[in-house]
């Protein structure tokens, strides 16, 4: 499989806002390769550098040192700017602050309009994008009357209309209720599965990482853990020390193991956990 995103010794320093204050180092040397078509979850507590990292993926932030490549293009290269932004789409936390227009379909059309796509094709892209997020019937609605989850799906559609290779969801579920969160997650998984779009999901909800191909845990501007969900979640103590919680299933298995039961730690889902426990007690 080919690499879509790559960072090499990536560092980022936020300059001091006022004189006398120190600059904030957000990223301290991140080396990362993200494979095309994968579903990657980046976890970390607030201030771990995960959001900064995601903003370097499409040249919203340029590295203070090191480099970021999107399909081989250096994000530092002004010439490729639009091409990079088109390929790596971003969805942010607050759905209200990323919707530009007061008609849903006009908002979805915003990116292709900026890219100078011909009118007839914009129409097709908008229809396809709305269909992909299941919001066709809302094409003529005013976005501010939709639910949080629906607004986020519109934001995703607005990104899909660029026909990107990769979508980065920067804490896009943080402000949503459980229903909205499920809507956004299942949309992201569907796009990954059916359309082959690479998804990078940034979150602090552990259970959103259960179905990912790969989990990266950030801490203090560096990658602290990296692996399949099963490999990462079994490191219970480490995760806790990084300010994260483990899913209750893993917590239960961990406790029972300490009590001397012979159990695996990597049964993440409710059913897998129940199977393992039932097996051990039989």
């Amino acid at each position, binding site marked *: 499989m080919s690499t879509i995103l790559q960072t090499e010794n990536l560092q980022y320093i936020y300059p001091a806002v006022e004189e006398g204050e120190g600059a904030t180092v957000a990223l301290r040397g991140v080396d990362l390769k993200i494979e095309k078509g994968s579903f990657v979850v980046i976890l970390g507590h607030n201030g771990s550098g995960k959001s900064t990292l995601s903003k370097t993926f499409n040249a919203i932030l340029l590295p203070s040192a090191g480099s970021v490549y999107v399909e081989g293009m250096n994000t530092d290269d002004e010439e490729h700017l639009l091409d990079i932004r088109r390929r790596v789409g971003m969805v942010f936390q607050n759905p209200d602050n990323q919707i530009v227009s007061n008609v849903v379909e006009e908002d979805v059309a915003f990116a292709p309009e900026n890219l100078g796509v011909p009118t007839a094709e914009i129409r097709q892209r908008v229809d396809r994008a709305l269909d992909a997020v299941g919001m066709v019937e809302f094409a003529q609605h005013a976005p501010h009357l939709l*639910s949080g989850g629906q607004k986020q799906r519109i934001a995703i559609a607005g990104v899909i209309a660029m026909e990107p290779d990769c979508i980065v969801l920067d804490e896009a579920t943080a402000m949503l209720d*459980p229903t909205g969160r499920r809507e956004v997650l299942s949309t992201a998984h569907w796009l990954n599965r059916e359309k082959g779009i690479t998804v990078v999901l940034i979150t602090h909800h552990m259970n959103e990482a259960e179905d990912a191909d790969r989990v990266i845990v950030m801490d203090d501007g560096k990658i602290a853990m990296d692996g399949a969900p099963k490999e990462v979640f079994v490191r219970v103590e480490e995760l806790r020390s990084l300010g994260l919680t483990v899913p*209750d299933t893993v917590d239960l298995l961990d406790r029972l193991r300490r009590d001397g039961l012979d159990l695996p730690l990597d049964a993440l889902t409710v*059913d897998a956990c129940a199977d393992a*426990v039932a097996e051990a*007690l039989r």
Partner: protein
Amino acid sequence: MEPILKVVHLTHIYGTGTPFERSAVEDMSFDVADGEFLGIIGHTGSGKSTLIQHLNGLLKPSSGQILLEGKDIWAEPKKIRDVRFRVGLVFQYPEYQLFEETVYKDIAFGPTNMGKTGDELDCCVREAARLVGIRDDQLEKSPFELSGGQKRRVALAGVLAMQPRVLILDEPTAGLDPAGRENLLANIRDYHRNKNGTVIMVSHSMEEVAQNVDRILVLKSARVLMQGTPKDVFCRADELLSAGLDVPQITRVAMALKERGLAVDPAVYTTEALERQLLTLRKGAAGC
């Protein structure tokens, strides 16, 4: 003992007389006991927000009553502000309402509106700050220099400083990371325990509610679906699930274990409790 807050057949209808007429709260009745920690849970649109804005008199019932310490809060509409001091409401994302130059002044806004001055005011502010873990040296800072989690704690202190009899929190942990969430919940638990305060917490998260409150009120489509202790409520996990509500993950594990033929009581909602149950099962097995 007389309940501190009593909601009697409360109904609230939006847009009366327009084509958009709909009831956000329909015939809700429940009591809140003095010193109780009550959790309110339900989907977006189940009427949670409308309900709690009635409890401190921000909204007026279309019909029904709210009794605070036995007295209808709308008996004297002119004194509704006093009700707001006695029933403190912390809105969702309360950090967005901070406005003063210093943390101290912002926390002092509520008590100042109550007419407190001098040492009494100072005492309220410092005590509230201490309750949420804001250090003395942070009081003179601008609230906008603080981190997101700290800002939220300042906003919470702003309500605690009014020393309300009842504290209502609308999704206090929304958008916080796990550590921030746990910190804030610990603040609330401490307040509840040490001050013996009555707390009502609205939340989307079943886990959060289950692990913190004494009693749960479940709302669905503008009505009270069920109320009782967490154990009572999660006993009826099937009902909750079919109503489209979540149950804690650990309850689902217990249900799955029962399905697999283990003698597990599925009405558990903490990992500790399930662990204990499973250990007795093992001991039983070893005895055979």
